[in-house]
């Protein structure tokens, strides 16, 4: 593998090639991010147009004071939510990918059908799911009540609603994950598996000893992208499906916020949901970025050790 040994010596060409990307990123991503960081130390109201420096007061409010239990719950929920989406999502995607990798007739069609939902927008996915899972008149409950005699309160019950949002988020990202895993699976040479089979390993042992390690670079990459997806991009889905609710069960001390309110949702609610508390939302943004950054660093440290490159 080409480890990037420089072939061309011209520095000016190198910078010229990098310049457009770097310029755009600095102007349109880093600068607004900087502004957002600065804004987090202000009390700024979008609708009133006010702006006053208050130092770390926004952060203080999030961690102590009357809103702290709510925020603690939101952070906890976000972590649990993202972990579920990543872990369950990758397991399911790998299973689908392995199925789709089998050499059977029509595999091309199967692959196409398994992958395309990722083209759906989160809002539309949310709308469709909210119809399907409506506790009274949704199709899923119609079928379940006829077959199993139960009609779970999907959107009523906080725990079920949480599960539903996790499921919808996984469903939407399936196509993306399956494609990547499929590509990785097709890159695994068949002989390794067969050699293990000759040595007497059964299917599960072959999977653990051969397939999984060879998939690890792809898994590593997908964990990263799915984490970003779960923390940042599920906003539209939540907004349509549950609007961040319902409030969690008091018995579990989860009643300080809606159970499906993740950090990005709370952030948007505070900023653009009618209150216009931009500084407060900005502070939440800072914390969100720090949290995801921390998780990523941990992932690189710990996960990097378990990634096996090579395979041929």
């Amino acid at each position: 593998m080409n480890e990037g040994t420089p072939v061309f010596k011209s520095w000016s060409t190198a910078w010229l090639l990098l310049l457009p990307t770097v310029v755009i990123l600095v102007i349109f991503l880093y600068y607004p991010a900087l502004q957002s960081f600065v804004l987090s130390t202000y009390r700024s109201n979008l609708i009133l147009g006010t702006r006053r420096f208050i130092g770390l007061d926004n952060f203080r409010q999030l961690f102590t004071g009357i809103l702290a239990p709510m925020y603690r719950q939101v952070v906890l929920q976000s972590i649990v939510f993202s972990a579920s989406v990543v872990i369950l999502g990758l397991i399911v995607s790998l299973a689908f990918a392995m199925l789709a990798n089998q050499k059977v007739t029509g595999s091309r069609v199967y692959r196409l059908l398994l992958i395309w939902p990722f083209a759906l927008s989160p809002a539309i996915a949310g709308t469709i799911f909210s119809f399907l899972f409506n506790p009274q008149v949704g199709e899923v409950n119609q079928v379940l009540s006829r077959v199993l005699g139960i009609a779970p309160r999907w959107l009523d019950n906080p725990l079920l609603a949480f599960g539903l949002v996790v499921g919808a988020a996984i469903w939407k990202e399936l196509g993306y994950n399956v494609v990547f895993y499929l590509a990785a699976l097709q890159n695994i040479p068949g002989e390794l598996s067969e050699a293990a089979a000759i040595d007497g390993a059964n299917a599960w042992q072959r999977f653990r000893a051969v397939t999984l390690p060879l998939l690890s670079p792809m898994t590593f990459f997908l964990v990263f992208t799915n984490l970003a997806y779960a923390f940042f991009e599920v906003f539209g889905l939540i907004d349509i499906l549950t609007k961040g609710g319902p409030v969690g069960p008091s018995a579990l001390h989860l009643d300080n916020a809606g159970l499906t309110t993740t950090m990005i949702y709370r952030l948007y609610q505070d900023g653009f949901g009618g209150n216009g508390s931009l500084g407060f939302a900005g502070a939440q943004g800072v914390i969100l970025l720090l949290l995801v950054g921390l998780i990523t660093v941990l992932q690189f440290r710990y996960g990097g050790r378990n990634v096996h490159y090579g395979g041929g």
Partner: protein
Amino acid sequence: MKRTVILFSLLAMLGSMALAQTKIDFFEAFSTQRLQWIQDRAAEWNKQNPNYEIVVTPKASYREVLNAAVLGARQGNPPALVQLFEVGSQQAKDSGLFIPVGKIPGNFDTSDYIKPVLDYYTIDGTVNSIPFNSSNAVMFVNDAMMKKAGLDPANPPKTYSDVVNDCAALRAAGDTQDSCMTFPLHSWFFEQWMAEQNAPLVNNDNGRGGRATKVLLTSQPALNIVNWIKELNDKGYYTYTGKLENWNGSEAIFTEGKAMFHIDSTSEVNAITKAGKDGGWGATTAELPIADNAPREGVVIGGASLWIAKGVPQDVQQAARDFALYMTNTQNMISWHKLTGYFPVRISSVNQLDKEGWFRDNPNYAVAFQQLLNTKSSPATAGALMGPFPQVRTIIEEAIQKVLNGASVDSAMGQAEKLADQALQQYNSNFQ
């Protein structure tokens, strides 16, 4: 030949200069049919006023309209005419971005407006915005189901206890599948029930005598409301979809014939009456059931009104107001009412409809109207004014949801009051 061409092009140029139109942006929250109606009115007005062009832009929700208007002002280009929801009134006034319509030079006659509606949008004696789409809460009844429960649809429940008794009758008659009562878990209904008990939602004369500093969520009237909802829920009479503010969900439950009573907005009278007819069970309307021993003070206006921006030239302000008044004139309000079910906010419109026999032919509307016209004028029924109203609504809704999930009413409402007071304090601190 050449001279004709030059002359012609000169004339064309002059003509287009004379028609140099000022575009007036109108941000509003409706789409599909209602948007089409508004666009038709805009087209009519544009033809009569060739120097201006009203450009109607739909936004996804009332919150989006406010955000878009504020963002537009932030970049120096505010939309001249904006449709803002009623609970955004304090924010709109505080933002300094809008000019009270009463203060724009020119003729603005308010005598034709229905008093409760005008009261809502009058702050400190000045009329801030032009009422447009106004509605109340009203109860819908499934006639067939009531009869099956051994009850008389012409005698709907009037108080909380009546509702509980009627629900018990439904169960006693053998119906254990359907719900008795459904309504969206929306703070709007809470506010209506506060007004009916003549109880203000916030202090300082419901925010109208001075800036509100406390939200009165642990007052006895407030607790009455939540206790009743809890009772309905505990006895299995109440249902909703689990999502806050889910109008469609609860309406669907009723129009599918799965609930006996339904509380909704008067703007849904058309749709629900039709569903009742199509379903064969018949839907009639009734006054809101209220707390036992409550004085039935009246209901609070819901909906939206039209605000005019300060940051545009005076002639544009006047043109915007002129269009707003045209869109809400007597005839147009009648056509709007017939299309959507929102109240025709002008007394002249109501009188004309009455003369046409409209209320006789549509008794469901008559009930809703009576409820509005019987409203007594007081700070409680004028509607609460506070800055963080949207946030406080969510706090109230989540508190009720907590109660539905098993928390005690006192602890949930107590916590809600603390959170709401804090939100008020945060908002007010922007003015120090």
